[in-house]
């Protein structure tokens, strides 16, 4: 999975591309920890627009990130949800756990 990050006006966006699965664990953690440790990043947005696959290991990573974001006193949102990716997140009820942006 490719991960691009941007930081604009306090919002750090991690744009994911490709497959979000057990192989993504290290890259995803490295990307979000950089943002968690950056005091300028007050909100973290995960952009799924270019994700074409995710499974329960990705759901676990998102839950872990959510815990860390709360502990760091920051906010988190998910955006760009579509197709099967949106379906999996909804089956897991993540729309109730995360702020979802269009």
């Amino acid at each position, binding site marked *: 999975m490719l991960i691009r990050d941007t930081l604009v006006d306090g919002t750090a966006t991690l744009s994911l591309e490709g497959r979000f*699965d*057990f192989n993504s664990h290290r890259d995803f953690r490295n990307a979000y920890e950089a943002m968690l440790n950056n005091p300028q990043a007050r909100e973290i947005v995960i952009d799924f627009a270019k994700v074409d*696959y995710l*499974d*329960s*290991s990705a*759901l*676990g990573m998102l*839950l*872990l990130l*959510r*815990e860390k974001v*709360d502990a760091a006193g920051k906010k988190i949102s998910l955006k760009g949800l579509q197709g*099967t990716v949106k*379906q*999996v997140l909804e*089956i*897991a*009820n993540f729309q*109730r*756990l995360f702020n979802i942006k269009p």
Partner: protein
Amino acid sequence: MVERLDLTADHAGLEVFSDWLTDLAERHQLTEGDRFRLELVLTEALTNIMDYAGQAGREVGITVACDLAGDDMTVILSDDGPAFDPTAWAAPVLPTRLEDATPGGLGIHLMRQYSLAMTYVRETGHNVLRMRLPRAGEIPSG
């Protein structure tokens, strides 16, 4: 025609599976949705087998069989690891608050939601898990 794959219950096995599925999807010209369902359900099932295979203290072998000839897709996973019945897991109470959310059980929940039917038997020292998946359209109501 039934497609078969033998693999070991470890992460190397998961890589072998991924390559096999890519080849299978191309040969059978699976739609994007069908391939996604097949991959998700099989990956979740294989990951579960790998998780409990560690208790065996020996190499655990898995056979994956896919029958793509009918209106539905039928997959059968057979492994010689310790007995594990995913159909016996109670459906998780989906969290509505973060404090209640845990990753555990989400994989089996996804398998259930994407299957029309999921059955398990333990026979001659093997776990045999059979799942029937819809070809296309909306997910089953689960």
